[in-house]
């Protein structure tokens, strides 16, 4: 399986209830950073997992706007 697709599979399979309203970074099949500021979350992930391919997802909250 492609590494990047493995991150997506992890996102689909893993309960994300505790991260509602947050940005989550998944790298090599595990969550490496999360929080409400996507720039800070990505920066932290890059520091922890330099040069690794990762997936950034937002777990939508109830009040998500639809444009």
């Amino acid at each position, binding site marked *: 399986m492609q590494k*990047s*697709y493995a*991150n*997506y599979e992890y*996102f*689909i399979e893993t*309960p*994300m*209830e505790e991260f*509602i*309203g947050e*940005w989550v970074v998944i790298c090599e099949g595990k969550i490496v950073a999360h929080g*409400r*500021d*996507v*720039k800070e979350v*990505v920066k932290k992930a890059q520091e922890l997992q330099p040069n690794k*391919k*990762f*997936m*950034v*997802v*937002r*777990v*939508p909250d*109830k009040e*998500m*706007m*639809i*444009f």
Partner: protein
Amino acid sequence: MAISFRYKSVKRPDGSLVKSPSVPITMIGKSMRFDTAALIDSGADISAIPKDIAELIGLNLDKPVTSAYGIGGKVDSIQTTMNIILEKGHEKYDLILPVNVIMGKYDFPVLLGRTGFFDKFTILFDQKSGKIVLKRAQDLK
């Protein structure tokens, strides 16, 4: 050929289960690229992303601020384009889509609207099975 993806299920604090049709994409900009799960939004005329995401990947935001309208009301936005890759298995699509970058502090997943995306695929939302199926339109190379 067709590719399919499973819906993402998230349990809300009130116990309700929300299933959303998302697809894995790679977003490519001048500064960086990363993968994300984009929500397929058939109700949106055009794709939309938060300003922070646009700034992270380095989209060109040196354009006039206009307005975008939706159920959330009127918001400032900048219309530009974004390069995405959608792939699964042996199928790979490199697309340049028009996108509204929503200014201000709004956080939401990348939304793939109709323009530039829905005309590339025949899209089936199988809510009951929790699957989304994208079949390539005939004219897409």
